[in-house]
């Protein structure tokens, strides 16, 4: 059947690929509808840049390739990129005034690989400035609104990507996750988001925040779609010194493995103080669903995970203060209009170019690394990091995956968390995973007062295939991931 009229963007990537292959519609038709929908929703503020001409041209090329009998796994599928990934010829702002007019001379590896897999990039999504935030409110380009309730945040820092997928503006988007920035917005917007193991996906061309924690990953409606995207994104890259050489398994084939007898570790500490009772109820219901599917629940403990937040707020700012030293107004990016001398130029450029949260983190990091404080802060945090990572190793002796809430509460109101520490508390369940370098996925697992909540599954190092499998089985049995916000 030929499709006509408004395009059903509730379709998943897997379904779109089927329709494209069967000739039910063209990529050009899908992309026209994507662009129309994006432009009809300016209030969400999910995009910083929409590349209409580039998207139309790429879609035509995809259709022409298909007509010539060529194929690629994601040929003709539209995708949005978080504005942290460098894109040759299209500006990359990282949500900052510092990079408002920055046009990178090359593509990030993630972008290049998704292009090679046939994806059609349609634009760059809004984000917390330099990925520092959990609500998308720190963006120089203004907050993103949650499609489930425009008065609430979408989460962050990949909030634009999460809102765009949740509002069905695009079927897929890329994100990055340093302390929860894929999983927390995925949870707050009711979509599926995967943070791969550290090193699984190349960081080349991904603007650095905290280099020992940053990792790129897919955001989409389903775990199956995340499997398709990860297959294209993952793998060795000689341009990233920390990219892993391990072979990329067949994620799609792994989706169908039975989960009978799977041991799911339930973290005692993640169901205690700090968790909204209503979110806790939704988690219990999700765990019961897994029991129905044949999994066994195992009580586990991560005794040091409660200290992950202070540990992270030393290590991440320390790495950030070093990474962000490059923004000096000399080689690229913003430069202050008036200054007396070189030092004054640096100071004015940086104080005008960075927003308050970025400056706070640079200050904390600079302090933690300064003479006389290094041992008490940075070294102490690195020792604690090992204890936190070791907890996971022990837990995985008695279970195959770990399950719990992604975030302690559903989406909160824009402006509700003005104190930085109360904002940081959003990431208490996601941060330990980054410190240990493990993979984790957030999937829709119910609603609390009309707002989506996410279930986080944490896997062993490089066990993305199992995570996607376990998430897919849940999505075969439930329809939370199929629900779209009213009006979208």
């Amino acid at each position, binding site marked *: 059947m030929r499709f006509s009229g408004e395009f059903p963007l509730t379709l998943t990537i897997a379904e779109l690929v089927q329709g494209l292959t069967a000739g039910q519609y063209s990529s050009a038709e899908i992309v026209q509808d994507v662009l129309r929908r994006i432009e009809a929703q300016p209030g969400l503020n999910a995009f910083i840049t929409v590349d209409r001409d580039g998207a139309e041209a790429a879609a035509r090329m995809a259709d022409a390739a298909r007509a010539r009998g060529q194929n690629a796994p994601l040929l003709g599928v539209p995708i949005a990129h978080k504005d942290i990934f460098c894109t040759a010829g299209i500006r990359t702002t990282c949500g900052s005034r510092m990079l408002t007019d920055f046009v990178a001379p090359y593509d990030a590896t993630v972008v290049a690989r998704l292009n090679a897999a046939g994806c059609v990039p349609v634009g760059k999504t809004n984000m917390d400035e330099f990925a520092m935030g959990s609500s998308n409110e720190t963006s120089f380009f203004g907050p993103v609104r949650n499609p489930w309730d425009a008065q609430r945040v979408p989460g962050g820092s990949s909030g634009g990507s999460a809102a765009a997928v949740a509002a069905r503006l695009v079927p897929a988007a890329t994100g990055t996750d340093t302390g929860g920035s894929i999983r927390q917005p995925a949870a707050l917007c009711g979509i599926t988001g995967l943070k791969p193991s550290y090193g699984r996906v190349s960081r080349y061309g991904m603007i650095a925040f905290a280099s020992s924690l940053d990792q790129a990953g897919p955001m989409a409606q389903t775990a199956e779609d995340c499997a398709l995207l990860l297959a294209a994104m993952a793998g060795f890259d000689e341009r990233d010194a920390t990219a892993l050489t391990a072979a990329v398994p067949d994620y799609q084939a792994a989706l169908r493995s039975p989960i009978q007898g799977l041991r799911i570790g339930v973290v005692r500490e993640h169901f205690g103080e700090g968790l909204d009772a209503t979110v806790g109820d939704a988690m219990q219901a999700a765990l019961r669903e897994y029991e129905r599917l044949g999994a066994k629940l195992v009580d586990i403990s991560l005794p040091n995970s409660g200290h992950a937040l*202070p540990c992270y707020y030393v290590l991440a700012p320390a790495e950030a203060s070093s990474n962000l030293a490059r923004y000096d107004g000399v080689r*690229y990016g913003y430069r202050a209009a008036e200054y007396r001398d070189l030092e004054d130029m640096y100071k*004015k450029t940086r104080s005008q170019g960075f927003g308050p949260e970025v400056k*706070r983190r640079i200050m*904390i990091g600079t302090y933690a690394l300064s003479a006389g404080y290094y041992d008490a802060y940075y070294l102490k945090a690195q020792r604690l990091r090992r204890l936190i990572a070791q907890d996971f190793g022990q837990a995985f002796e008695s279970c195959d995956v770990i399950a719990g809430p992604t975030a302690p509460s559903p989406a909160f109101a824009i402006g509700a968390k003005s104190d930085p520490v109360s904002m940081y508390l959003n990431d208490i369940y996601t941060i330990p995973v980054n410190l240990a370098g493990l993979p984790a996925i957030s999937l829709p697992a119910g609603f609390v007062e009309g707002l989506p909540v996410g279930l986080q599954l944490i896997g062993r190092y490089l066990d993305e295939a199992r995570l996607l499998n376990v998430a897919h089985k849940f999505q075969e049995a439930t329809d939370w991931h199929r629900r779209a916000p009213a009006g979208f």
Partner: protein
Amino acid sequence: MNKEDIEKIAHLARLGMTEQERDTYAEDLSRILGLVSQMDAVATNGVEPMTHPDEAILRLRPDVVSLEADRDRLLALAPDSRDGLYLVPKVIE
């Protein structure tokens, strides 16, 4: 954290700061350091610091040119450049 501490750190980080900002940052940073001080509750003596999730030895590659930099394209990104050079305010009088 007092104003003098903030001034010193801001200088190290090459961040300009107004009087009012110094007050705000003193308060914010004190609060964040309060959070950070919770680390002290954990005994970490004798624990090897963990620098990285993948602590394997960094991969080496042959010492040959692998990327030809396009000087003009990179210089075009600079706020100010001339004759193939980045321009900054005069450093030596």
